């Protein structure tokens, strides 16, 4: 394993791991904020139990997210020192903002977790707002760094160094808003579906009580609220790509020839040597429409760019499949909440508990993570071979140290161990409460 491959694999493992916890860390606070708010308003203990349990889960997930995030902030330098030497002055301000957001998030999450018995209910509830907002803001700044790697702005390149640095212009680079919103909404979707799935599993096991029904309800509420934002963000990011990074769009769509009436190729295997795409389902004119809102618009193909700037024979097909996986699953996630709410209103505002629907919810949750990872894979592979698009190649950013392969295996082992331990712990947490039945125990005393 050479240094570059090992470094990329190491960072890929770390980020693939971190993104799961980051997404839940952004989404869960929103869930417990809403649940506690309803509980406070309606003076309803069941909502409180939900909020309290989610906050415990969020506590565990936040710790794992925070330590893997701390590790990441070292890994940038350990694995990509030349990239950091070039760029960290430019995008450092975004990390500074993110750092403060993260700091506030840690403080208020601490207050929230340890304040259940120490703060008045209203103050306690208020403490969830900073957690929700700083979590969301932090993601915006981090995504802004990522989008800067795609559309680097805010500096002038002179003799291999950056001069005339404007960190604010770098922060608001062209891809920043669409990428950031797309990710934020995705994080809420992932959390909504996951929460719904946890309680759908309980309902499937016959624990049909208001506690489980409300868990499903709130999960689906958040998932439904994200339908329109995600539809907008999805098409926005497509248009932004067509405008700012036509090469990336061509790579992930497997479009070799620049053409008007460009078809959308779904799935299939992209062969960069033959410049063809096998076994794909072609939808005529669709790509032109997605990119420019006109069926006859001209979409730039890979032929407009020299072959040595293509992501390569392996990465292009993977990026294409990852993109189609994300897009297809994304469509599913827009549909499922609609079905759920259709039955909700048809049953006169009763949470539908049909077994097939619960199974659908149960299956959707892991699929949201698949879509999350696939979207991230698309974004990263589509940018290759650049670490900073058209400025620095990935191979020029990597560390000159040997021993990166060892680093990779050690971190792979650690992250696998952490993943297993976290899942075991969350399952334990779920078991601890599974006998809880609000109708029997609490309602009487709550009044």
């Amino acid at each position, binding site marked *: 394993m050479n240094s570059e491959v090992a470094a990329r694999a190491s960072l890929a493992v770390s980020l693939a791991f971190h993104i799961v916890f980051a997404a839940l860390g952004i989404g869960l606070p929103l869930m417990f904020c809403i649940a506690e708010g309803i509980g406070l308003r309606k003076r309803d203990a069941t909502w409180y139990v939900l909020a309290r349990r989610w906050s415990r889960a969020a506590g565990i997930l936040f710790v794992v997210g925070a*330590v893997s995030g701390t590790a990441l902030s070292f*890994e940038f330098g350990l694995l990509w020192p030349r990239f950091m030497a070039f760029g960290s002055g430019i995008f450092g301000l975004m*990390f500074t903002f993110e750092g403060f957001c993260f700091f506030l998030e840690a403080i208020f999450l*601490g207050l929230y977790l340890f304040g259940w018995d*120490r703060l008045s209910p209203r103050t306690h509830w208020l403490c969830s707002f900073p957690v929700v907002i700083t979590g969301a803001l932090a993601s915006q700044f981090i995504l802004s760094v990522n989008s800067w790697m795609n559309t680097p702005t805010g500096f002038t390149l002179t003799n291999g160094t950056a001069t005339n640095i404007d960190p*604010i212009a770098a922060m608001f680079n062209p891809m920043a808003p669409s990428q950031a919103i797309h990710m934020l909404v995705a994080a809420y979707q992932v959390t909504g579906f996951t929460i719904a799935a946890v309680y759908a599993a309980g309902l499937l096991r016959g624990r049909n009580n208001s506690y489980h029904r409300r868990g499903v309800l709130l999960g689906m509420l958040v998932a439904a609220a994200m339908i329109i934002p995600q539809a907008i963000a999805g098409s926005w990011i497509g248009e932004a790509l067509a405008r700012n990074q036509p090469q990336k769009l061509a790579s992930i769509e497997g479009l070799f020839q620049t053409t008007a009436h460009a078809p959308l190729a779904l799935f299939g295997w992209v062969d960069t040597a033959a410049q063809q795409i096998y076994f794909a389902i072609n939808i005529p004119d669709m790509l032109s429409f997605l990119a420019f809102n006109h069926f006859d618009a001209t979409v730039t193909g890979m032929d407009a760019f020299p072959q040595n700037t293509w992501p390569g024979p392996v990465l292009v097909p993977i990026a294409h499949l990852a993109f189609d996986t994300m897009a297809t699953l994304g469509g599913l996630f827009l549909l499922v909440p609609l079905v759920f709410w259709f039955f909700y209103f048809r049953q006169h505002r009763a949470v539908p508990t049909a077994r097939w629907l619960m199974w659908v919810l149960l299956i959707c949750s892991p699929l949201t993570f698949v879509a999350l990872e696939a979207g991230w894979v698309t974004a990263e592979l589509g940018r290759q071979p650049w670490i900073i698009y058209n400025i620095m190649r990935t191979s020029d950013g990597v560390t000159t140290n040997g021993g990166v392969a060892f680093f990779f295996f050690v971190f792979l082992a650690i992250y696998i161990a952490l993943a297993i331990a976290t899942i075991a712990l969350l399952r334990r947490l779920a078991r601890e409460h599974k006998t809880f039945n609000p109708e029997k125990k609490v309602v009487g005393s709550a009044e």
Partner: protein
Amino acid sequence: MSQSTLATLAAALAWVALIAYAVLGGADFGGGIWDLLASGSRAERQRAVIARGMGPVWESNNVWLIFVLVVTWTAFPTVYAGISTALFIPITLAVIGIVLRGAAFSFRSNYGREVGSGVRWGYVFSIASTITPFLFGTIAGALASGNIRVSTGPPLQVQDNPWTTWTTPFALTCGLFAVALCSVLAATYLTIDARKAGDDAVAEDFRLRALVAGAVTAALGALAAVLAISEAPTLWQGLIGKALPFAIAAVVIGLATAAALLRRLDYLARVLVAAETACIFLAWGVAQWPYLIVPDVTVDNAASPASVLGPLLIVSVLGLVILLPSLWYLFTVVKRTPRRSTPSVGTGVTTAAFVASLPLADPDVPPPHTAPLSAQASAVVLPALPGGPTMQRIAPVLAALFAIAAAPLITGIFEGMSRGMHRGMQQGLERVQRRRNQRHRSAHAH
């Protein structure tokens, strides 16, 4: 402000954050060390005090480290890249330590120590807590030694021996010194925690440990200074030159800490030991000034341009204005006695109790989320804002952050005030009562 002034300020900012990390986060590492060294019949009680003290705060303490890293790579990109390249091995090991320490602490406290996996995670936690500060110490030693040669480039080129740079006698002594310092900090803080929890025996345990660890720290510090004469001459020249006042202050405050511990002045000892740590770091920083990596990288030649440093400093100062009160609020709230002793057992019952303890229905609660909502909105609108001076463009973000922090803080402060007033009134009433009783008694005596 000139470039050089800005660079100095940025270095000072990084150093202040580093001191905060040492004083707060260092104590958390120390907690892990004492967890490993817990002994005698009170070992479990010692561990319980450590877990209770660290639980709510270690995560926010850990963020100081991230802050140090972020300021370093923003303000001094070559320093961050250079250190990461030259000291790849100890930093990698330290990262592993940080990941395992944090995760293990959280897993352990969620499993409960008695359970099998809880005990295993307990060992991971305490061993990682001991190794990590040791590695940080060796890194610091390596930076001062002058064995890392950097040509700032571009491209950046770093030359050192990846194995021996951080394993010289001087660097290893620095590592041990860091471990000892962390244990003094922790033991001093834990004395107070145990005393507050009403466990005087454990408090005495920690007081004794603080004294012993303090003596060890002093010895290691002296040894490091002697080794520095030959192995880190630049540092040594600084220590007997421009940093001498800080070095002397560190020694004097160290002695005062020992005296305070001997006389059981716990709270004074806590302040003194924090001041001592700050002095040690100031002495190190000033002695090495202006070098960040001896002998090639200085504050001036590594600094980002003023267009980066200016916004960084503005954002950091305003950020700290929001952060520090929030942090203070966290520290005060977690010190309060919880309403119930076992929060997570028997959810059904406890939640009922919690709901029953709610104040009477209060339907006209003012909508508290107006400020955060507008903050969110401005964050969404931000990318569309037109260009202009830096401050104008950062302003909405800062305003948003202010609003976020302000809502619960204000409520919290109000709550604290009403609590204080209530207590004050009660004390006043008691005093009146007591005086009346006294007058009664004296009247009877006459």
